């Protein structure tokens, strides 16, 4: 074989290998999806979505968990968005470069990797006990907000960094203050990136079970939360609860619950993509 032919062969080998690796991960994902779908699809109907959980598997539904997930996520977004953007703006635009800022940066990057149950313990001792919020929607949302914050801060900083210097200079040169420049130029330009980060953080939060069990979210509930101080449950906890029962019928419920959760996640992500594209187009 000539040297050229050998190089070509090597090229083709690597190409084949990478396709194989891709196929392997896709097959694993597809198997999982198929398994869940084949177990759960017969249980999926309007009644399943709108019924309370029950001791009889056939009558059980996920309504309170669905509503609970929605409320908790709202609280999480409402808390982590302003706090995360505020922290990122400070670190990126004001605090830049100092020793303190760098120390804070490293800590935030580390926080993004802390196991979620640790946040649950923090939420339990601070929000549930010290603040006296009890195992409520507010305490759950606040706990998940802590979990989401590092992701929101990091992605917001990335988004702020992509705003070109020329946009800032143009604003300063017209006599705008630093805050006016950030508010009118930097944040709007960075918004699509910030939104993407927020949705990513929310996608992570919506699937979390451990921290919410830790703060005492209920596993069985036959009412929907009426205020932020109500007790609640969320989809993953409901799924966990069904999975841990011996009867096969409950396993079907669990699979159906997972499908609902996946659809919710996909919807959330698609909304983010559509919103981002719209905003980008509107500004182009």
């Amino acid at each position: 074989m000539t040297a050229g032919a050998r190089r070509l062969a090597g090229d083709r080998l690597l190409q084949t290998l990478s396709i194989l690796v891709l196929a392997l991960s896709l097959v694993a994902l597809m198997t999982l999806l198929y398994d869940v779908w084949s177990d759960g699809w017969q249980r999926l109907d309007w009644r399943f979505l709108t019924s309370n959980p029950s001791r009889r598997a056939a009558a059980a539904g996920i309504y309170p968990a669905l509503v609970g997930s929605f409320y908790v996520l709202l609280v999480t977004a409402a808390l982590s968005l302003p706090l995360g953007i505020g922290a990122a703006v400070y670190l990126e635009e004001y605090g830049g470069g100092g020793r303190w800022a760098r120390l804070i940066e490293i800590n935030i990057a580390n926080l993004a990797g802390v196991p979620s149950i640790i946040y649950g313990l923090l939420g339990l001792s601070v929000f549930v006990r010290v603040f006296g919020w009890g195992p409520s929607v507010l305490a759950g949302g606040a706990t998940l907000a802590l979990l989401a914050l590092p992701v929101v801060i990091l992605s917001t900083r990335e988004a702020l960094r992509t705003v070109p210097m020329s946009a800032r200079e143009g604003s300063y040169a017209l006599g705008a203050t630093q805050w006016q420049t950030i508010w009118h130029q930097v944040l709007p330009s960075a918004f699509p990136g910030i939104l993407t980060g927020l949705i990513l953080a929310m996608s992570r939060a919506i699937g979390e079970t451990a921290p919410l069990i830790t703060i005492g979210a209920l596993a069985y509930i036959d009412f929907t939360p009426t205020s932020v101080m109500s007790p609640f449950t969320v989809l993953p906890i409901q799924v966990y609860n069904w999975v841990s029962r011996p009867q096969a019928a409950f396993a079907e419920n669990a699979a159906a619950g997972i499908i609902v959760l996946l659809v919710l996640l996909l919807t959330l992500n698609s909304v983010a993509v559509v919103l981002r594209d719209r905003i980008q187009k509107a500004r182009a």
Partner: protein
Amino acid sequence: MIRPLRPLTTFTSPPGAAAPPTGVKIAVTGLDFFYSQKQALSAITTDLQANIVTAFIGPSGCGKSTFLRTLNRMNDIIPGARVEGQILIDGHDIYHPGTDVVDLRRRVGMVFQKSNPFPKSIFENVAYGLRVNGITRNRGELEGRVEDSLKAAAIWDEVKDRLSESALMLSGGQQQRLCIARALAIQPEILLMDEPASALDPIATQRIEELIYQLKTTYTIVIVTHNMQQAARVSDRTAFFWLGRLVESGPTEQIFTSPTEKLTEDYVTGRFG
């Protein structure tokens, strides 16, 4: 014409500051500039005259843009940048701790090398400076000022029917004239232009140069240019920079025909640079 709205504010200045000589708008004395450790300007001393066009020429990296950006303290936003020496505008020290930088930049407008319209409508681009400075909230007055500024920048006829369209839809030359209109809207006294035509084709360049010629009756204009023909065409006075120093400055004709320094002569005759 742009109608005056409010009396131009003055800077805070140390008591007893000497009145500037007639005709001198900007007086620079012993100016040094550093990017962290690297010195970019050394001992610049010069006077810039009111209501004429002064051109800064010199090879890349000679400090002419840096010097331009010290005049509206645009370098303040660069971390580690440091200024020593004195710059007086109308006799007031712009690096005095009491100086209001925001107000300084309102009085000393700037147009950049690469046109940088905001990703907003044409109207909002021009209105931005008026809004952030709180100059007017009245819709009719705002529209009047935007129209006047676009006319002053010789772009009104091209955009008057599509003011609500995105500024990014304009051609390069139009974008640059929009940026000039944007700078004019807040009625600066001085207009700094950092190679405003370097990214434009010859026809667009010519339009910018004509515009500069019209604007100099109202504004003190300082323009940085790579293009020596352009300096010769548009400016009344020229300053030649080399390695962070001001080598020579004087009437443009003299700089180009009979400079006193050998270095200036070598540069303007194209022997280096």
